[in-house]
């Protein structure tokens, strides 16, 4: 009898103590840190990348492999499951292989280590502009994950929902939302696993016989303004106004058919605003976009600009002695204001105003 009572008491005590022993839900900060860190385990899987635009949806399937610290392989499939594009990097060299054209481009992978903004400053910038809230548990690719909603502090609206794999910290799904709450994109794993072993050879690429190999122009620089200015005959002209929360990070030099373009990069920790300055004789070619280009004129106050839409953002192009191209996903009014504030616009030419980044790292008390 006493044994039964003891057993019942033990079971009861165990039951009562269960909530206390269950792993507490991670805080938004923990989830964010988990998703920001480079995964410590290799993973592979299959995912869908869906873009929802103007009532239409385009979905691509991608085979994904990753091995820390920075090796990745992406194979983009066509509708019947053949690989059409392969992107492979072993952390030092990146290959983009277009199977249909039989062309492989060899370049350098994007590497945040060379950026002028250091990782702590970047995270601080992200937290300054965005707020994260835990949104409960979900299952993606048959794995438990913790949802995290990302809100803009200025616009007070939800921008993204991430679901972070509880075990590895990998983002298993990511949805992005428009101003009115519509879903703009949905990227999610259908299958996900963390194999115990993954060979390094997976991340090597040997162009198939007959492939034309070319060097990629995308070799990013992270230059200070003075360094970039000395590399071109153009006088760098930056906007005097950028959207709140954005800071000037660095300049990239882009060479094309004998012309050198300056690429000024601004970031708010999540979003990017790119301003390109090119000699006036460089014209923008929208190529195969055809009717989807949807260009319209925009009044800058001191001139006119052309606006075009691209799945990656809006493109605003104008000429003010040099040619300028602004790419970003900000509101049209913000982009118009950035363009109108570029120093040395026709009305103010000769005023002697010197370009100064609207908000620099130094302005934030950074380096």
């Amino acid at each position, binding site marked *: 009898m006493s044994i039964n009572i003891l057993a019942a008491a033990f079971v009861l005590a165990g039951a009562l103590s269960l909530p206390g022993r269950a792993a507490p839900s991670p805080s938004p900060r923990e989830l964010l840190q988990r998703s920001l860190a480079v995964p410590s385990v290799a993973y592979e899987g299959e*995912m869908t990348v869906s873009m929802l635009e103007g009532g239409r949806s385009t979905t691509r399937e991608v085979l994904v492999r990753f091995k820390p610290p920075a090796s990745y392989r992406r194979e983009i499939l066509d509708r019947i499951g053949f690989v059409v594009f392969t992107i492979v990097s072993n952390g030092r060299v990146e290959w983009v292989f*277009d199977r249909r054209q039989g062309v492989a481009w060899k370049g350098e992978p994007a590497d945040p280590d060379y950026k002028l903004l250091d990782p702590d400053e970047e995270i601080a910038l992200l937290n300054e502009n965005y707020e994260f809230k835990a949104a409960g548990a979900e299952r993606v690719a048959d794995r438990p994950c913790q949802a995290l909603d990302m809100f803009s502090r200025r616009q007070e609206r939800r921008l993204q929902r991430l679901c972070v794999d509880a075990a590895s910290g990998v983002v298993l799904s990511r949805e992005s939302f428009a101003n009115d709450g519509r879903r703009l994109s949905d990227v999610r794993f259908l299958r996900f696993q963390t194999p115990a072993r993954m060979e390094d050879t997976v991340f090597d690429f040997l162009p198939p016989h007959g492939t034309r190999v070319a060097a990629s122009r995308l070799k990013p620089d992270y230059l200070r303004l003075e360094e970039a200015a000395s590399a071109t005959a153009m006088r760098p002209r930056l906007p005097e106004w950028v959207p709140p929360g954005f800071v000037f990070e660095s300049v990239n030099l882009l060479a094309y058919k004998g012309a050198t373009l300056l690429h000024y990069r601004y970031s708010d920790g999540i979003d990017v605003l790119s301003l390109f300055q090119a000699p006036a*004789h460089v014209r923008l070619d929208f190529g195969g976009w055809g009717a989807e280009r949807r260009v319209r004129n925009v009044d800058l106050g001191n001139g006119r600009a052309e606006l075009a839409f691209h799945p990656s953002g809006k493109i605003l192009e104008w000429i003010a002695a040099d040619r300028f191209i602004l790419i970003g996903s900000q509101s049209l009014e913000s982009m118009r204001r950035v363009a109108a504030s570029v120093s040395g616009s026709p009305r103010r030419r000769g005023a002697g105003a010197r370009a100064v980044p609207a908000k620099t790292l130094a302005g934030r008390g950074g380096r």
Partner: protein
Amino acid sequence: MNCPDFEVISAYSDGEATPEEVRVVAAHVRECESCFLRLRSVESAKLALRRVPAPRLPRDLRRTLLEAGPGLGDGRAAWRRFLEELRAGLLHPASVFSIGAAVVAAFLFWGRNEGLLTPRIELPADLLVAAHNQYALTLPLAPTERILTEMPDQIAASVTGPAEGRGVY
């Protein structure tokens, strides 16, 4: 690099710059291709104008003026005569040529500034989008999969016939 104002370059070309401006411009144009071209453009325009022969007074106008002497009759008649002679003068080949030369010189200078005279370079918008996206990949929480899925299309679209040795590469 601080480029001198156009007025300073023009003054330099005219020999009217101050010694300090001469020193600055002479040193600057050796380093700055844009200002060198601008100076060359100013000098070519001036040279072109200098080569235009000075318009000569039409013979009949000259005769009329000499015959009229100091008293050219009443003001209205003189004004009418002046307009007629001016019209005749403007239609003179030398006048037509000099006006044409001035227009061409102005166009050359303006066109150079606006990039209309340099061979046009067609820059694929996709290349710029790819550069924009490549930077986006370096951000924390970058939508890596979406960007990497779009990027090959952008790189491919920005290539115009690599087999012919043209295009991005």
